[in-house]
């Protein structure tokens, strides 16, 4: 079994290294095939491990020692238990689909080989993060995915907007990682080890204040990775990267690392329910916040990105309220249909020659039937209609909120569900229905390659049927996670809630369709709605990026300028130059000693003689007077 663990872990690394050999050469399709093939083997290994774990066993290996100094002992250890195997399956399924899809998507790109190198490296880092058995390994994976995400967002490095977005993502993650590091330091300082089993056994014996701070700091790290407010601006800007990147990283894997951290550290968070309430509240706020921004956006990928942000809020609500298995389940279901949505958007982008404004599209269902079906079904799943996957996970979270008597959170999430349905179908309606506005711009769309649609189909299937896994999944993970069933005691309340939610969502969908399916013009900023304050506020993301720019970036830039001009140039450089100048001048001035005139040289000789003798006498006197 350990063999399968190592295969699942290292196969993506091999793929990445193989592709890395070709980064400087023109496109070689072999890199795509090999990378995808290796990821498929990783998927198969994960499936075998899933089978094994479902039989009630776990696999725990220690590969080698990393640090063993004094009291500190950190190994490279990996564990495959119920939680990590679920994550492994999600990651490998979505990664394999995205890799195969990318062979078609990046077909005409010059950086084809480099793309697969980065992509497989990302999957390897994510596997390390998920399979590690101690906080230090988690942090390695954490940083690794941050780095690969930087490389992939800024993949088209000639575009300044792309490099800026990549830097923004990396720096924001770094700021959050500081919090996480402090959390890890606190854990080590108080417990003495970073291994999960040791920490979780010991954490109950610590003082509540310490546990609270640990929880807070670890969550700060999660905030950066999962783009919770206020560290959320990087996620929307990360859409500068290629669409498969968005599908893999910003829908299914990297942004869910924060949720994984909270789920994994559930023994800690169980002891500090106040922090949990805060997490849940923040999650609910983010859900509503992101959904509001998606209502008016005119960038297709950004709408989907805000939708991801919103669903992450849902996951944190569940985790914060102690329903860890629910959060993980929603993570799994969301990964499938969100990745599908992104890949479909990629098809549309390719067809529309990288046009992103849905108002400039329209009526594409006549030309792109496959993509139309997939995106519509994915949106249905996202909206949470029975019997698709989203229903089982999202409604479960709503139930959790209701049962735990957090009615405010419940209302917020319900409202957000309606908004989610609205903007998802606004997007679908604008793109696929109505008049073919793209003809105004002379674009000739065509469907994507057949094999890309075939690659996307597993995700479609899973998005539809994932709900049926709920019971099996539940039986699996309660071996590790707290198993609270959320029952609404009165059956009538339950049915009113469920049917009511469904009706509300369906109404939102119909409203969107009515408004947008017959759109026939491209808005150009002059309509009354576009000039209204509310629209402007939402369009500019509540002006938060602007605030960050003014309050943080600009003063820091000024500070850097001062440090450069005043300190570096005037003080440091001047000092070094002064030393060099002093030596040079000394040389010039003592050049006269060697003027070729013998009598002056004899004079210097006598001077030297006198100096040496003085030194001899002085040292001798000193030696005799002051001691042996």
């Amino acid at each position, binding site marked *: 079994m350990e063999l399968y663990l190592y295969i699942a872990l290292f196969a993506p690394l091999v793929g990445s290294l193989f592709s890395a050999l070709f980064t400087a050469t023109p496109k070689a399709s072999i890199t795509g095939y090999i990378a995808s093939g290796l990821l498929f083997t990783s998927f198969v290994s994960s499936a075998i491990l899933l089978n094994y774990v479902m039989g009630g066993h776990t696999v725990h290996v220690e590969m080698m020692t990393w640090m063993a100094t004094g009291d500190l002992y950190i190994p490279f250890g990996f564990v495959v238990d119920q939680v990590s195997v679920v994550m492994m399956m999600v990651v490998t399924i979505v990664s394999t689909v995205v890799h195969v899809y990318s062979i078609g998507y990046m077909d005409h790109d010059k950086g084809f080989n480099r793309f697969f190198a980065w992509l497989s490296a990302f999957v390897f880092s994510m596997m390390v993060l998920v399979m590690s058995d101690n906080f230090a390994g988690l942090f390695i994976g954490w940083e690794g995915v941050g780095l690969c995400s930087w490389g992939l967002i800024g993949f088209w490095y000639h575009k300044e907007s792309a490099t800026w977005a990549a830097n923004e993502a990396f720096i924001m993650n770094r700021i959050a990682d500081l919090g996480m590091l402090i959390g890890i330091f606190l854990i080590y300082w108080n417990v003495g080890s970073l291994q999960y089993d040791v920490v979780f056994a010991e954490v109950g014996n610590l003082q509540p204040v310490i546990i609270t701070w640990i929880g807070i700091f670890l969550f700060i790290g999660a905030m950066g990775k999962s783009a919770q407010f206020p560290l959320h601006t990087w996620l929307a800007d990360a859409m500068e990267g290629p669409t498969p990147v968005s599908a893999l990283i910003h829908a299914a894997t990297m942004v869910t690392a924060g949720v994984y951290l909270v789920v994994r550290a559930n023994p800690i968070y169980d002891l500090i329910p106040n922090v949990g309430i805060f997490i849940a509240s923040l999650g609910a706020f983010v859900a509503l916040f992101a959904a509001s921004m998606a209502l008016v956006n005119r960038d297709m990928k950004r709408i989907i990105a805000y939708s991801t942000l919103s669903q992450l809020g849902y996951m944190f609500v569940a985790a914060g309220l102690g329903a860890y298995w629910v959060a993980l389940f929603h993570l799994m279901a969301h990964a499938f249909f969100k990745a599908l949505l992104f890949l479909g958007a990629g098809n549309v982008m390719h067809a529309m020659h990288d046009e992103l404004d849905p108002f400039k599209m329209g009526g594409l269902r006549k030309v792109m039937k496959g993509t139309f079906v997939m995106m519509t079904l994915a949106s249905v799943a996202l909206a949470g209609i029975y019997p698709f996957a989203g229903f089982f996970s999202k409604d479960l979270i709503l139930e959790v909120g209701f049962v735990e008597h957090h009615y405010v959170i419940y209302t917020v999430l319900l409202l957000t569900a309606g908004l989610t349905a609205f903007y998802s179908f606004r997007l679908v309606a604008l793109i696929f229905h109505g008049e073919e506005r793209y003809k105004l711009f002379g674009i000739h769309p065509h469907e994507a390659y057949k094999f890309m649609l075939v690659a996307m189909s597993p995700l479609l299937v899973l998005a539809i049927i994932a709900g049926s896994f709920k019971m099996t999944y539940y039986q699996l993970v309660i071996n590790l996670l707290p198993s609270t069933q959320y029952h609404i005691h009165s059956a009538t309340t339950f049915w009113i809630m469920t049917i009511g939610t469904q009706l509300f969502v369906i109404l939102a969908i119909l409203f969107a369709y009515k408004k947008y399916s017959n759109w026939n013009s491209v808005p150009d900023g002059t309509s009354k709605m576009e000039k209204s304050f509310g629209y402007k506020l939402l369009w500019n993301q509540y002006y938060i990026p602007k605030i960050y720019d003014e309050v943080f970036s600009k003063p820091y830039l000024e500070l850097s300028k001062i440090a450069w001009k005043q300190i570096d140039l005037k003080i440091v450089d001047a000092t070094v130059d002064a030393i060099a100048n002093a030596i040079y001048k000394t040389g010039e001035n003592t050049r006269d000693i060697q003027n070729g005139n013998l009598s002056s040289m004899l004079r210097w000789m006598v001077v030297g003689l006198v100096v040496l*003798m003085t030194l001899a006498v002085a040292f001798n006197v000193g030696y005799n007077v002051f001691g042996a």
Partner: protein
Amino acid sequence: MFEAIAFYLFAALTIVMFTITVMTSQALYAITAMAAGMIFISAFFFILGADFLGAIQIIVYTGAVMALYAFGMMFFDTTRDVVEKRTNPQIVFVLGVLAAVMVVAIFVAPIVSNNIQALYPIQENIGNSQAVGMVLFTKYLVPFEVAAVMLLVAMIGGIILAGKKMDKSLTLMAEEEITTMDDMTEEEAQAGGHH
């Protein structure tokens, strides 16, 4: 008592003579004063019981070295007074005094500490020459031989540097050439005299 008088007398004379040597502008006076100073120094050696050294001083220094300097002086054009550029007499004086003080200090220090052992002690019953001979040919044999080689080298060097017609080898020339060699023309003599 007697020794003290002799010491002070000869000390005064030596200092005066050497001062004349370094201060005068006439080369002839300088050389004469130098020779006198050498003789007085040998007097010191006799006072100190170093008879052999005193005799050597007179023979070698006053006899050979000063004679060499006299020949050299005659070779150069010394009718001209050499103009000494007075750069800064104070500095020169000060440096000299400082050096002297330092030397005294260095010499005095080990004696004050009373830590000195005699490696080759002076024996009272034999004469100085005998004692010097004994030490010279046993303990100091190697430096003695090396000094001899050095003197040989110096002699050869001196001859080569100062001699005329040194590019011709007398041993390799035939008899007739040597006998006809003296019949140089006036031009050759002029040319050979001044390179």
